[in-house]
Each structure stands twice: as C-alpha cells, then as structure tokens.
C-alpha cells in the first residue's frame, strides 16, 4: 500500500512540474539560508572564542591568588612544586604553557609605550597562543634562555623600531624594585586581531625571571583541556588538586567574550526561529494550495473508500518527497556557499572602524555536520507537521462536496 502511495505521490509531483520545482526551490532556499546562517553564527562565535583565547588565554589558567586583581610578580608560584607538576600531568590537561607576565614600559629613542612583558617557553606556546600561527619577521625567542625580544608590528611602527635594533624595557621586579634592561628586537609578529600587536612583547622565560628577580617562579600557567573536557571541568579539577592556587576557566577570565558567545547563541536561535517560521508558513500555504487543487481527486479517494489515514498518508508522502528533495538541495547549496567562502567573509568594507580598532575583519563560515543533520531533520519534521493540516482537512471533507468541486 505504501509503495503504491509513494508511486502515486511521485507521479503527482511531476503532474505540475513548475509548482513542484518552485516549492522545492523555496524549501532549498530556506534550508540553505539556515545552513549558511548557522555557519555564519558559528563563525562569529568561533572567532570570538579564538580572539579571546589568542589573547594568551587558553581554556583555563592558574595564578597565585590575588594576581587577577593586581597582575604583579608579587603574586607568583613555583612551577617545579610537586603538586603543580602532578596537576599539569593529569589526563584532563592536553597542553600547558608556564609564563612570567608583568606590566612594563618599552622605550625606543622615539617614544615609550605601556606593554605586557611575557616570558615564555617558546615550544610550549606553539599550540596554546597566537604565536603558533603568527607571521614573524625575523624570529621569536627560541628557548627559555633566549635574550632577544619579539614585538608586535603595530608596536614596532609606534616605536619606530625594526628587527636588529635595540629597545629598553622597564618593569617592577621583586620587592617593587624598578628593573630595566636593553633588548635587541629579534622578531616582529603580525597578529590577528591586530590589537595583540601593541599589547605584548615576548622574551625567554628565564630571561624575564632573571630581570624581575623571581628565581624559577612563574605568574601564570595557561592550559588547554583534553578532548571532551570542558574549560569549566578543567578549572574545577585544577582547583581540587591545587587549592592554594587560583584556577579559572576562560569564560570567567574573559567575561565579555563569554557574553558575546552567549549573545550569539541567542541571536542564532532567534534567526533559526524566524527562518523556520517563514519556511513553515510558506510550506503550509503551498501544501494547502496543492491540496485544494486536488480536492476533487482526494474526494474521489474518499468516495472509493480509502481510509482517512491513507489520504493523510498520501498527502504526507508528497510533502515528504518535496521536503527530502528541497532539504538535500538546500544542504548542498549551503555547503557549496560555505566552502566557496574560503577563509571567511571579508567585512572590512563594512567595518573600517573595527579594523582600526585592531579587530578581526574576516568572518569565517564554520560548517558543522551535526548542524546540517539537525537542521535537515528539524526542517523535515516541521514540514511534515505543516503538511498534516491540509492532509487532515482533505481527509475530513464531505466526499460529494469535494468530488463535485470544480
């Protein structure tokens, strides 16, 4: 019976080819719009998280209590402590980078600017901070003992300096002693977002420790969570293992970025609802028209004694075939649009202010297979539900009224 209904539905679709194609195109456009929008929203969220995490954040961080309120080397801790090492080697941690961070002033012969001095272990930074993917003119620190300095492009331009030239860095060391030292600029990095380029200068961790007089201590450990471990879970695990330290997940460390991600999710949901509602209204309208056009035929089915469920099933079969075709086509079009956008949509034409502020001007479209599957299934379910109403109406019509309608 179902096979027969499917055959009948399939042939019915091609009875009015133009109407069928218009409806399939409308469903496909709705589906493609949802897929691309979802990718766009995911891209914005991913970019927000990326930009936040690129700010040397990581999934979670460890500090000495008090450091987050007053980022001074006074609030530091020993990297080599056994409990710290054990916590860093736990399975929840995929990677970490221990740093010395201190507010500083960097000066050239031209001007002085405030920066954050970061003493790093270069190999450890590769997978954790933007340094791993930044383009560098010259080179950055090669190991913890490196005495060269890596600075950002915009900072270099502001200072009027270049690779090979010297700058002076001044900060407050142990006991609030003002310390300073000359550094040779060994590298200039380009970063995205651009505001990173004026924020940070990098040298070897041991060099920073020696300058600040803090022995082997560090002020910050940035961590990346193992797959399947959320930042919050990682921070909680670290808190349990290291109760004397302050462990926090990135949303707590960067609440503005976390808020933007949350807001994005809200916008995405609203947009989904609007597009889905438009799709349902269009679908119900078109299916109603399709059913009304065939009132006489559906009345005939009733007259011949087809059970009401068979009439509903027949209309639903037609909806299902159109939905399946439209959703598959829309998914494909959406995927092509996303892949075609390459590294993302360049919004610099519309966001010059953002570029000047050092924000990212390329918004990536992030294709997500579960998004596609969920959207497809939801669209199918909503479409079938939308088709049920005209089907139900068709099944409840008085046969003679339907059959004599012209």
């Amino acid at each position, binding site marked *: 019976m179902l096979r027969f209904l499917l055959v*009948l539905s399939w042939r019915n679709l091609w009875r009015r080819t133009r109407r069928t194609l218009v409806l399939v195109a409308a469903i496909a456009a709705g589906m493609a719009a949802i897929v691309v929008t979802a990718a766009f929203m995911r891209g914005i969220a991913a970019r927000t998280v990326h930009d936040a995490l690129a700010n040397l954040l990581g999934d979670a961080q460890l500090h000495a209590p008090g450091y987050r309120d007053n980022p001074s080397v006074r609030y530091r801790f020993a990297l080599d402590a056994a409990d710290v090492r054990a916590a860093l080697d736990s399975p929840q941690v995929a990677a970490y980078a221990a740093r010395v961070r201190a507010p500083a002033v960097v000066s050239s012969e031209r001007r002085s600017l405030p920066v954050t001095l970061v003493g790093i272990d270069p190999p450890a930074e590769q997978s954790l901070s933007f340094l791993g993917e930044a383009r560098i003119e010259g080179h950055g620190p090669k190991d913890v003992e490196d005495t060269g300095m890596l600075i950002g492009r915009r900072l270099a331009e502001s200072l009027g300096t270049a690779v090979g030239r010297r700058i002076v860095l001044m900060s407050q060391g142990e006991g609030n002693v003002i310390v300073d030292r000359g550094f040779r600029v060994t590298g200039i990095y380009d970063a995205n977002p651009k505001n990173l380029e004026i924020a940070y200068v990098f040298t070897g961790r041991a060099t920073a420790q020696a300058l600040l007089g803090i022995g082997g201590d560090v002020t910050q450990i940035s961590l990346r969570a193992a797959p399947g471990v959320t930042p919050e879970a990682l921070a909680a695990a670290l808190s349990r293992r290291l109760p004397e330290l302050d462990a926090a997940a990135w949303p707590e460390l960067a609440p503005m970025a976390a808020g933007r991600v949350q807001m994005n999710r809200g916008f995405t949901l609203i947009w989904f609802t609007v597009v889905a509602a438009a799709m349902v209204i269009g679908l119900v309208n078109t299916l109603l028209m399709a059913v009304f056009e065939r009132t006489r035929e559906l009345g005939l089915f009733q007259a*011949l*004694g087809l059970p009401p469920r068979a009439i509903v099933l027949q209309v639903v079969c037609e909806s299902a075939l159109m939905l399946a075709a439209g959703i598959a086509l829309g998914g494909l079009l959406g995927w092509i649009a996303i892949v075609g956008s390459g590294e993302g949509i360049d919004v610099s034409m519309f966001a010059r202010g953002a570029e000047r502020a050092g924000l990212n001007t390329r918004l990536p479209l992030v294709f997500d297979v579960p998004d596609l599957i969920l959207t497809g299934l939801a669209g199918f379910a909503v479409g079938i539900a939308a088709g049920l109403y005209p089907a139900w109406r068709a099944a409840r019509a008085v046969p003679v009224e339907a059959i004599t309608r012209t």
Partner: protein
Amino acid sequence: MTMETVVECKALSKTYSGAVEAPALIDVELVIARGEFVCFAGPSGSGKTTLLNLIGGLDVPSAGSVAVAGERLDRLDRAALAALRLNRIGFVFQAYNLIPVLTAQENVEFVLQFRGFTPAQCRALAHEALAEVGLEGLERRRPGELSGGQQQRVAVARAIAGKPELLLADEPTANLDSATGQRLIELLSVLNGRHGITCVISTHDPQVLRHARRVVRMHDGRLVDDSGPTAA
C-alpha cells in the same frame, strides 16, 4: 420468495442550505433488493444524483436514514463508512474520475490494494476486470491515452473488480456517444446478470432505461413512480 434487502431509505430528505434553502430530496422511502437493476429517472434537478450520493454515503442526509446491506450509514463513523464504501460499494461517475497519473491497470489495482489483497491478487483481479469490460491490451495506457468510452469502462472495471454487492452509477453514459453508451449499459446489464451485483443507475438516457428492470421516477426531489421491486 424472500428478497434480501441491499438498500433501504426511510423518510430520506436532503436540503442544501445557503442563501436560500433548496430541498433536493423530500421524504423518500425506497427498498432495493439484492440483484436488482434499478434506474433513477427524471429531469435534471429531480434529485437522482442526490439520492445516489446518499445511498453511497458520499453525502449526509438532512433527515431520515439510509441502510446499506443492513448497516445504517448515520451510525457509522468516518472510517467505518469508508470501509463500507471500499468493501461493498462500487462507484461509476459521470466524469469517469480516473487518476490521471496511473495506468488503467493501476487505477483498478489502486482500490484493491486497500482491501487487503496481495499485490499478485490485485494484479490478477484488475486484469480480469479489465478483460471483462473489453480492455485487454490497454492495461498500460493512462486515462489521457484512452477514449471517453474506454475511460468509462476502466471506471466500471475499477468498480466491479472487488466484486461489490452494490454498484452505483451516476449518469454513466452522459459523456459518451450513443453507440458507446449503449455498449456500456449492455455491459452493466451483463455484469448484473453474471455476478448478481445490484446495480443502481441514475440517468435520463432512454436507452439506459430500456435495460432497467425497475425504474424509479423522480421529480422535484420526490419519488413519483416506482415500477416496483423485481428479482434479477
């Protein structure tokens, strides 16, 4: 001889309501026995089609009742009424009402599918019915590829394939030329005799009336003359 009743109408009335109420059928009392070949005759607007629709459960009476094969239609729910039409009644419409996207064979099989026959049984019964109405060799043609007479014979094949107890035909010859109409009514007459299917036909075609063994004449919604029950 006791004749088994197939259709029984009691005080049957139908009024179409709209801007003005239009009585289409007034207080009809009618009994049709198994195997009869009955024609409802009368001018347009006399209530023939309305009576046929009410007997077939295609419309709802304003008053009175219809019983088919002992079942009061007003006491059946939508599904039970559909089942009664599917299993016990065959319809032939003036406008053929074939499904245009299905072949002749499929049009006949379509209804059988819902009666629980296996696909092989459906094929065999459809083939047999089409052969019986003289359409052997045309099974794969769609309605658009058949003449009016051939389409009406497909409709007859669809109506008789499941061996119904009652065949209702509404002006079956109205859209056919006289020769084709004559052949069709002869066919219905033969099927009535061969299978004992009770045939009820609404018509104002004299050549159809000539084949009727019982003529029920109607005028302005009233049954004005009935030649009386006759055994097949």
